[in-house]
């Protein structure tokens, strides 16, 4: 290398250095800006999430508590209209409400006008009589005795006790009148009013009375529906994915099928509801509002989701594993079931759980097949009329009573809880069974 060429090289290098230095500043500034935007995006989405969760929690938490009133109810045969020898049917139909009303009147003997009486009676929920009924039916010997019971309070009373009623408003403008306030305060100072954990919310189905409404019915409806969805969509989707990924020839037909599966995943869910209505209910004459139809419709909806994620999971298994097994003389089916499928399973399960979570939160297609009816009973079989959690939320959100506003938020909390649980399971499975090669 001559002296001259070396010099030109040095010259060229310093030229490069200068140019790179100039551009560096710009490059770093660009990177900084990009990071800043990323941070802003994350903070914004976290804020929205926090606002959502906090507002729902604040609104929903009171629904997990219920207020009870303590009463000495005299179960005299005359008021009830039955005696201890009565049969079960008569016991069921006995006038427990009358007994409760009598005990309220005993507490406030001054009440005499019809209007005042009605105001007083509203203290106890209409569901109170069912509690009493259950006690008496379990032990008919109670008739003629006086029992000390805690009964749920009515919606307005409950609203007042939770501070939802603005007492500064003129009496005419509020649902809870001055005399009622006086009585309640007297009861409260006597220790006859107590707030406890709301077990009703988890142990009963829907009701027209907010203090009696629970999510057990819709929860069971959701579970039964998801059971049908899972048992149908998981095996079908996995079999489809395996066939398409491992066995099917790559030609125009499989291309068409692939495009259609991807399209199905993007079809609005209400369309699946219409399909279910037309095929399962109108054509196959399956019962309306039943978890079996809901499950069928939701499996149609989740199938593409699971197929797509299962295919991705199968595709991510390295071809060297297939080569190794084939090279040892395994048949193609053996290659799949001994090696590829176990390795792809965490991915497939993750996709399945995400699909299930989607199905759990789905409302629109179920409206089409009649799972939106008012159903009080807890479903126990696949053909019982049922509703599901998100539809229950949808129904409660429509009702004006303060109690239902709380219940709506509380049901959303339960639904979100299940969704978080399912997604956490997906993450856990992925972590646990993730293998390296």
């Amino acid at each position, binding site marked *: 290398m001559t002296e001259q060429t070396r010099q030109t090289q040095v010259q060229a290098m310093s030229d490069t250095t200068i140019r790179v230095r100039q551009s560096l500043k710009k490059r770093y500034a660009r990177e900084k800006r990009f990071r800043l935007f990323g941070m802003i995006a994350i903070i914004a989405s976290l804020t929205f999430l926090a606002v959502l969760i906090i507002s729902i929690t604040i609104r929903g938490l009171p629904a997990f508590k219920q207020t009870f009133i303590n009463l000495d109810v005299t179960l005299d045969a005359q008021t009830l209209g039955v005696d201890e020898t009565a049969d079960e049917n008569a016991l069921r139909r006995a006038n427990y409400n009358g007994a409760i009303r009598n005990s309220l009147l005993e507490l406030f003997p001054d009440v005499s006008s019809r209007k005042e009486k009605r105001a007083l009676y509203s203290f106890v929920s209409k569901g109170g009589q069912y509690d009493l009924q259950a006690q008496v039916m379990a032990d008919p010997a109670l008739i003629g005795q006086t029992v000390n019971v805690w009964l749920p309070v009515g919606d307005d009373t409950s609203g007042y006790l939770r501070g939802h009623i603005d007492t500064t408003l003129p009496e005419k403008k509020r649902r809870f009148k001055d005399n009622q306030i006086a009585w309640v305060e007297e009861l409260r100072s006597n220790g006859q009013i107590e707030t406890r954990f709301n077990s009703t919310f988890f142990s009963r189905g829907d009701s027209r009375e907010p203090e009696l409404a629970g999510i057990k019915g819709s929860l069971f409806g959701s579970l039964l529906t998801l059971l049908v969805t899972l048992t149908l969509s998981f095996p079908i989707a996995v079999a489809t994915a395996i066939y398409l990924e491992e066995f099917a020839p790559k030609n125009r037909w499989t291309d068409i099928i692939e495009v259609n599966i991807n399209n199905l995943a993007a079809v609005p869910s209400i369309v699946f509801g219409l399909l279910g209505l037309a095929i399962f209910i109108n054509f196959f004459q399956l019962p309306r509002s039943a978890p079996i139809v809901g499950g069928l419709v939701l499996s149609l909806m989740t199938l593409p989701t699971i197929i797509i994620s299962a295919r991705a999971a199968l595709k991510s298994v*390295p071809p060297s*594993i*297939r080569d*190794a*097994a084939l*090279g*040892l*003389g395994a048949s193609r089916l053996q290659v799949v079931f001994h090696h590829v499928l176990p390795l792809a399973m965490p991915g497939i399960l993750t996709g399945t759980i995400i699909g299930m979570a989607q199905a759990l939160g789905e409302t629109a297609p179920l409206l089409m097949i009649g799972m939106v009816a008012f159903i009080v009973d807890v479903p126990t079989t696949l053909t019982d009329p049922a509703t599901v959690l998100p539809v229950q939320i949808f129904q409660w959100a429509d009702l004006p009573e303060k109690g239902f506003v709380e219940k709506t938020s509380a049901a959303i909390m339960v639904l979100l809880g299940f969704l978080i649980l399912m997604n956490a399971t997906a993450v856990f499975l992925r972590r646990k069974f993730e293998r390296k090669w």
Partner: protein
Amino acid sequence: MNKENTIPALDIDQQTPNEQTIEEIVASLGDTVGEARVENPKMSVSGVDVFYAEKQAIFGVDLDIANNEVISMIGPSGCGKSTLLRCLNRMNDTIPICRVTGEIMLDGEGIYSKDTDPVLLRARVGMVFQKPNPFPKSIYENVAYGPRLHGLNRNKADLDDIVVNSLRKAGIYDEVKNRLDDAGTSLSGGQQQRLCIARTIACSPEVILMDEPCSALDPIATAKIEELIDELRENYAIAIVTHSMQQAARVSQRTAYFHLGKLVEVGDTDTIFTNPKHELTEKYITGRFG
């Protein structure tokens, strides 16, 4: 190097001078120099052409693979040596666009004939791949998989014997005997490759095909594998594809030189490396291209 495993035709393209087609170049190479046939061949390749869709990757190859002998296949990238190797146990069946014509015989029976089951063929003709690919299972399970698949063992003790013997033959038993339950993937690269060889031996194949078995390994691991190949020669017919001419010279008795899908020259390794007859072979082994 990796490209070659998928579709060699791509590489051929790059090497083709503009004015000539591959077919013309191949024709200009002339007939194969040297003796392609041996007495009593284990496998015998006759007039084999291989196509990837419309592109021809191998042109009329004749070659014998003898018992108790290592034959090495050398040549520049994309010359079709791996393609030919994968034809020998029909691993090319997994590539839908791949088409093989001509005849390949194993013990006098055509392996592409309708009566031959590829599953049985692959049990008889084992393969070791370029990248060590143990199953993500225990070392024991890796080796036991083949025998279990083919029902080679009568009971558990039998299987234990097969596993231990195979690991011993692959020269890895002493290193892993205390941790047979560890994952096969937890071993080092060289150990993984010997595990893969043990896995292949466990099926008691008659022929072992090796596709650049040392290209992902360091020199010490390579030396161990080469030593192992030399020992295995006593019991098996071995065909090895390699990019290292030193390796071909060290482990093989016969060498075949491929160029653009054509078998250019084949013969005793000593002769090929000391006195190559074809101009291209000489250029390649003296390092003037490739």
